[in-house]
């Protein structure tokens, strides 16, 4: 990886980043502010989250605010554009501090720790660090045929690439939460994006080749999906092991048609059962046509009892997503389009939040989503979204 930090590829058990006394003070103060925010409401975020997952009474709707790493670092430097998203990929301590600062600043229900890598180079491809985003793949994806899979090993998130740094940050968040008492009131939400389809399509085979192979060379698709699924399970297990209380995975059904691709659902079922049996686990779906996958995903137990609890949905008809989820007793959070959050106006943001809250309140496992908070999203827009979610989400 071009521009990789010195610790790249250092196993998690050998990775240590020391906090200075001043930084320890910062961590403590952030946690104190988080606890103060929590104390101002009737239920704690942990109680609210557990009640939502169980379909029980809540004081207000749980807020699933996906602000992600770039916005966390944006909060940390007060929007100065001095610290960049690349810095959280290089320095896991900044990732921790950014999330704590964002939680404290916006009085959120939980952090949204997001991966700092997508396996771009771990299947044989090349990648480079990027100033304003996660590292990206450069050149062609490495797998052109089944023959290219010879010798390809499933990466180990505890040892390979930037993943140990991410796991270190997740583990450290849990330790800090526990040390200062935040753990009792707030769950640790961790993402394992992206899903096997995204991994196979984007970082192993390439979009076009994968989709053409789905019609002509199913073995290539199945074998790459097998590897990507095993990777996802390893990654998911690793974040659970370092203390994640709930896990979300960006999922790509909806980017492709379900017709003739029904076989892909089995991979979600496998992941859903492994992770869903340990912690609340759900998908993030961002394509309108993901709705067409819902029935089969439920039928094949990729979602439902003993598997994934449900989904976060955006860029789709929220009424249909909520109706299906209510009918099948699934967790569902719905967010307005991120473009509205970015560009406003605030009145439009508030209206979109209100619509979803009003429609979703009848579903006992509904949460209001705010996503995805872009690096350039004005703080006033994000604040207005949270305030609207609390106001219209109140029972």
């Amino acid at each position, binding site marked *: 990886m071009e521009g990789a930090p010195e610790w790249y590829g250092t196993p998690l058990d050998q990775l240590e980043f020391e906090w200075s006394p001043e930084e320890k003070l910062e961590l403590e103060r952030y946690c104190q502010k988080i606890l103060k925010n929590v104390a101002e409401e009737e239920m704690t975020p942990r109680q609210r989250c557990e009640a939502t997952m169980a379909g029980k009474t809540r004081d207000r709707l749980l807020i699933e605010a996906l602000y992600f790493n770039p916005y966390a670092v944006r909060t940390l430097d007060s929007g100065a*554009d001095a610290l960049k998203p690349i810095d959280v990929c290089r320095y896991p301590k900044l990732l921790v501090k950014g999330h704590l600062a964002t939680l404290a600043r916006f009085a959120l229900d939980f952090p949204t720790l997001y991966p700092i890598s997508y396996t771009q180079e771990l299947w044989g491809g090349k990648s480079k660090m*990027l*100033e*304003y*985003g996660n590292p*990206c*793949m*450069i050149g062609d994806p490495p797998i052109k045929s089944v023959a290219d899979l010879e010798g390809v090993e499933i990466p180990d998130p505890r040892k390979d690439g930037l993943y140990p740094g991410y796991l270190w940050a997740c583990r450290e968040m849990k330790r800090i939460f526990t040390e200062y008492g935040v753990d009792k009131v707030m769950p640790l939400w961790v993402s394992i994006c992206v899903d096997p389809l995204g991994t196979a399509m984007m970082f192993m085979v390439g*979009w*076009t080749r994968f*989709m*053409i192979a789905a*019609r002509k060379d199913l073995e290539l698709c199945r074998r790459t999906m097998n590897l990507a699924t095993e990777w996802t399970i390893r990654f998911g297990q690793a974040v659970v092991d370092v203390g994640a209380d709930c896990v979300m995975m960006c999922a790509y059904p*909806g*980017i*492709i*048609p379900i017709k003739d691709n029904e076989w892909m659902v089995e991979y979600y079922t496998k992941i859903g059962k492994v992770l869903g049996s340990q912690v609340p686990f759900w998908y993030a779906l961002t*394509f*309108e*046509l993901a709705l067409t996958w819902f029935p089969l995903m439920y039928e094949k137990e990729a979602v439902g009892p003993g598997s994934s609890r449900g989904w976060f949905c955006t860029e789709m008809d929220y009424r249909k997503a909520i109706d299906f989820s209510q009918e099948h007793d699934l967790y569902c959070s719905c967010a307005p389009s*991120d*473009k509205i959050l*970015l*560009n406003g106006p605030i009145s439009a943001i508030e209206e979109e939040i209100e619509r979803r809250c009003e429609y979703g309140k009848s579903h006992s496992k509904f949460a209001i989503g705010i996503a995805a908070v*872009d*690096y*350039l999203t004005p703080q006033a827009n994000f604040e207005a979204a949270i305030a609207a979610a609390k106001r219209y989400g109140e029972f």
Partner: protein
Amino acid sequence: MSREEILERLKGAITELDDEAVNRLVKEGLQARLSPLEIITEGLSPGLTLIGEGYERSQRFMVDLVVAGEIMIDVVGILRPIIEASGKQLGETMVIGTVEGDVHNIGKRIVAAMFTGSGYTVVDIGENMPANAFVEATKRYKATIVGASAVLSPVKAYCQVINKALVDAGIRDDVIYIVGGWGMTQEWSDKVGADCYGDSAIDALHKVKMIKVGELPKIRERMRATGL
């Protein structure tokens, strides 16, 4: 098979993302004395447009658009030497690239395919491209349309750097400058000095066509009209 039938089947084949059928029909079309330009603009392009419109109505999947675009680009790659050997050219030239600091290319390739399908010669200069690369390619290929893609929102501002480079090179008035990418708005488009922005590949093509026929003024004309 008649020429009309071949064109109709080509449209159907690309709509079905059937690359083998497309390749076979292209050969049959050439044997039936269809010109390469007819094959592109009357056979493949209407099919690609159908997919684009279906995507905008949430009836087709994003990946359909990507795959159809790749098929289109491959076919044009095969037909271009035949067109050039006959002393003709595809239409006006568009230079397109992803701006410095960003490497996303899927949306850019869809736009490239859509313009190719409409008869333009598209020169894709790649990703993470500095402003001078846009300028040099515009001069070298005598492009009349310059497209800049910026998906990562913080690099959207770089579109303004490209605009300035086009101005400094003295070629800004000779081109239509269009920008696109996640979260791009009219406000951003104006801010960076672009003539228009594409909300989608179809929107990009539509706006460029409107500028060319005088139905949508370029930014300088709009500024003049509003007294800015």
